[in-house]
């Protein structure tokens, strides 16, 4: 093993671009995933028959099939219906749609944790339903959903490696390609691993900072997780997928 080669790989344009691609994929997918999750959660909340049916079908489809299958399906099957998407868009679409199915549950638990009385109090003050959602429900729900959402974000970073199967030039694909050219797998994959670990660590620290910022009273700690606990809970969650 050559440390210089690891370093050389890490600063090479191909690796930096791969890492940026992974980051971009992750952020796009998580943002869209939260949006999809919010829509599903609100649709479930309406308690209309059609809303229930649609969301149940959605959850059944996206939780009942592997993400890898969804990625390949969207990339390879949609073109035969005339929907031609780039590999990147296909990847983001598959990851977001899949994420939405899990995010819906998290968003819903957050929305439900805000008691009906709080909404009624907002309505009684003359707020519209939208204002109640925006100024009363979401700020309170955000504090509750933030820890699990942070876990999802880190999970997404790792899931994003799956898009290498549809030739998106992400970190894993780049590492694999470079290694297969000269069979220096150890160095190339070590370089990629360091990037992954660096990104997950930064995400965790951001999450902790955000949790503290969303806490109106700095001294009140609703849930305090150490970095190690975060790592463990993340690995548990991904293992069950």
């Amino acid at each position, binding site marked *: 093993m050559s440390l210089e080669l690891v370093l050389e790989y890490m600063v090479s344009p191909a690796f930096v671009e791969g890492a940026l691609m992974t980051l971009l994929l992750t952020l796009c997918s998580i943002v869209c995933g939260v949006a999809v999750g919010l829509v599903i959660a609100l649709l479930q909340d309406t308690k209309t028959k059609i809303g229930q049916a649609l969301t149940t079908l959605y959850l059944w489809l996206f939780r009942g099939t592997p993400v890898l299958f969804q990625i390949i399906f969207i990339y390879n099957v949609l073109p035969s219906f005339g929907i031609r998407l780039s590999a990147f868009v296909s990847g983001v679409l598959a990851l977001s749609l899949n994420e939405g199915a899990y995010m819906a549950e998290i968003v819903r638990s957050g929305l439900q944790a805000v008691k009906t009385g*709080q909404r*009624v*109090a907002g309505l009684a003050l003359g*707020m519209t339903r939208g*204002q109640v959602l925006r100024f009363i429900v979401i700020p309170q729900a955000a*504090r509750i959903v933030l820890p699990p959402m942070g876990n999802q974000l880190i999970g997404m970073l790792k899931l994003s490696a799956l898009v290498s199967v549809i030739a998106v030039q992400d970190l894993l694909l780049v590492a694999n390609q470079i290694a297969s050219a000269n069979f220096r797998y150890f160095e190339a994959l070590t370089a990629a691993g360091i990037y992954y670990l660096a990104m997950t660590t930064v995400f965790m620290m951001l999450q902790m900072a955000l949790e503290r910022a969303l806490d*109106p009273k700095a001294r009140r700690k609703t849930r305090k997780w150490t970095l190690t606990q975060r790592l463990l809970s993340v690995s548990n969650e991904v293992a069950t997928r």
Partner: protein
Amino acid sequence: MQDINDKPLLVLEGIEKSFGALKVLKGCSLSVSASETVVVIGPSGSGKSTLLRCMNLLEPIDNGVILFEDREISGERNDKHVVRKQIGMVFQGFELFQHLSAVENIMLAPVKVLGMSRADAHDIAVGLLRKVHIPDKAGAFPDELSGGQQQRVAIARALAMKPKVMLYDEPTSALDPEMIREVLDVMAELSAEGMTSVVVTHEIGFARSAANRIVFMDGGEIVENKFTEEFFSGAVGGRARRFLDQILH
């Protein structure tokens, strides 16, 4: 003040309301004049709270008419929030917004609903906290306040919208006995200043001292609707008398 008292601010006519097969309001009619304090009493399940929630359209009615300042506000409409801006409500469970401090709880609706500047809203909020006798609690969060303090912040929050009428839904029922007084005192002060109020309560002492009129409900009907002195002098029917005997002993 007496002459404006004759002008009805809020009028309910033949209000009917069912929850499923259960008919909770069986044709209730009531008129509340400006500056008047009306206390609604009656046994649990008599429909008092439901009637109150109908007044600010939180509960849609099945039949009847509600007039607010001579305009009909009942019936299908999608601007209920416009009506509610002018009607303050205080709940049994306080319902302060848990993520906001006392002063922010009071400022939220003036800023977001009325479009007031934060500075103006802050001034109003501080003034209102003084009015409810907790000027030093501006920065406190709901879970740092006692029940009595929370309820007074909730009253201030409703007052910040400069409502034309205040509705109180059993405001002291969730309070420890030693805190009931401080909340009732604030309500009585507001009534004395001429704030039109409708109060659902079990506090007969408050009814006796602060109310202009007592409404007694039983089984979804308004059974008695009398001036306070008249009501307590015994000029009431058997149902109200039995209820009074029960809660006074």
